[in-house]
């Protein structure tokens, strides 16, 4: 609990004359769900891309499990145990659930794919997350609903033994019931000891599932709040810039 899984210190990123991230400090802990909120253009995506390794920061310190790391490629980030579930999910619709969960990390049995153990592990992972909405692990992703796809994408990060899972707008395109299911899944994911970061515009969801809330405003981290110690109105204030907190 003491050492954050990921810690950013004074992280800076600019695109030409535009300073998108102006000295960000940020922490996310194992077993906790941290919300990253902020209006469009606040710098959320840039922050996440840095963590995912697809676009490195200009300066600043990134610590993973207390050790300083340099995230220069997605492969590097994945090797550490950082998994990003993007909004568009990035699943192959023509492949089934097992194939998608193991895509790029297939288990082999000599020269051929080890379908048996992949199917077994995928089933175990889904069962471990108490996922009941999926009928068959050999269903094609094309036949799944938005919520089920989100479930598969999250389960994939669990399968990869991620220590930090970043979810980009996980409920954006979902209905009420599916949103509920995905949020429950996120909670279980954190309870299993994973550090979860959620990017969301939906404060209702944020309050339902998150432990900590970090607010970005125009490239600056303006607030770190405990969900239990704040309220909707406060957070909206920080997001829109009508409130500010010096401790950030």
């Amino acid at each position, binding site marked *: 609990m003491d050492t954050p899984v990921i810690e950013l210190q004074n992280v800076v990123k600019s695109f030409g004359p535009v300073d998108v991230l102006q000295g960000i400090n940020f922490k996310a802990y194992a077993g906790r769900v941290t919300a990253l909120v902020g209006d469009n253009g606040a710098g959320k995506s840039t922050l996440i891309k840095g963590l995912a390794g697809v676009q490195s920061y200009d300066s600043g310190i990134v610590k993973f499990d207390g050790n300083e790391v340099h995230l220069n490629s*997605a*492969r590097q980030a*994945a090797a550490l145990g950082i998994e990003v579930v*993007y909004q*568009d*999910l*990035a*699943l*192959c*619709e*023509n*492949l089934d659930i097992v*194939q998608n969960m193991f*895509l*790029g*990390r*297939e288990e*082999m*049995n000599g*020269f*051929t*794919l080890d*379908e*048996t*153990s992949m*199917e*077994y592990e995928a*089933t*175990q992972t*889904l*069962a471990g997350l108490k*996922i*009941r909405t*999926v*009928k*068959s*692990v*050999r*269903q*094609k992703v*094309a*036949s*799944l*609903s*938005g919520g089920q796809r989100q479930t598969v994408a999250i389960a994939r990060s669990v399968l990869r033994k991620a220590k930090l899972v970043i979810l980009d707008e996980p409920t954006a395109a979902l209905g009420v019931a599916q949103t509920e299911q995905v949020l429950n899944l996120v909670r279980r994911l954190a309870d299993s000891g994973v550090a979860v970061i959620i990017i969301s515009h939906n404060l209702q969801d944020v309050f339902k599932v998150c432990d900590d809330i970090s607010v970005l405003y125009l490239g600056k981290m303006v607030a770190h709040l405990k969900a239990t110690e704040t309220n909707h109105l406060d957070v909206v204030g920080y997001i829109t810039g009508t409130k500010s907190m010096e401790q950030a």
Partner: protein
Amino acid sequence: MSTTTATTISSGHEGTIRDQVKNYFVRVKSGEMGALPSVISLIFLTGLFASLNPYFLTKLNFANLLVQSATLMMLSMALVFVILIAEIDLSAGVTSGLSMAFFIILTNKAGWDWRVSILAGFVVGFLVGSFIGFFVAKVGVPSFVVTLGLFLGFQGLQLALLGDGGIYRVEVPELKAIMNDNMPAWAGWLMLSIFLVLTLLINFYDRMRRKKSNLPNRPLILLFIKLGVMTGLGAGCVAILNVNRSLSSVAIGGVPIVMPFAITILFVGTLILDRTRFGRHLYAVGGNPEAARRAGIKVAKIRMSAFIICSMLAVVAGIFNASRIGAVEATAGKSMVLSGVAAAVVGGVSLFGGRGRLAHAAVGAVVISIIDNGLGLLGLPAGINFLVTGGVLILAATVDAVSRKRAGATK
């Protein structure tokens, strides 16, 4: 019913035959039709032509049809590799012709050993595939444009190599034998048994592994039904082909030598697509290149490989074609490629990428060949043939587009 495993999530292998059949119809309804339309049209066309012309269902025509379709089958199987990644190779036909032009010049004019010249033909295929792959995967030129350019360019190259209206006879008896000679009766049976036993062994190996991991298996009887059908059809074909089909006093009988070649390529290619990491990644790139990239798949490498495999298999099609005609012409392969694409699409390979199998293309090739063969027997003008084949292609592409839409609508 199967025993319940620790979870409530199924694998699609559970249940009785009735459940399995029900699952199949659900999949068909949701747009995963596979080879079903082409198999139905195969049966329909056979019935149609058989009723219109008494010669259609004779054993001689059956053997002719198989040999006629072999070249197209190879070419459409070659194209499957690029169509699966939602690309196209319009130069596959002329690549087969060009490689044979090199082969014939080296053998007939330069006096090389024919085996070395064949190897040179494959090198040509490899280079052409690498060239297309480089421009598509690395430079980013649409494959349609690159291969259309090559389609035109290679016709010029063929003319330059073989001369205007140039035609060279294939003087190698081993090569001519592929399409024109037949195996002894026992060899046909041996070939059939080898493929059946291999299929059986692979299926039992899979079942054994699943059982060891406590995963449910499909009812055993389903496998036996499948193998039974394969055995019945295979044995029927071999038996018919082994009977003397000659109209003169010289006996002609046996399975054409091309068959073991074609079936081996189909068999090995299917194993590669279904059971290797490369095959899986090929389907992934075809389904969603961005997802494949994010999963760490080297998309450019997969694309390059697909074009190289396509061009190399096109060379095999070229060999088949040269063997059948017994000569290499400057225009070889030019008119073949669109039929190849049509065969793949008619067989159920999606032009949108990511869906389809080699066997689909093979069945599609037989459908196209039946149209060609049947209309020819009816003595209709060649124009009708083009019209019908074109119509079938558009129909197949429409089925593909509609089933894709339906699959998307069931979200």
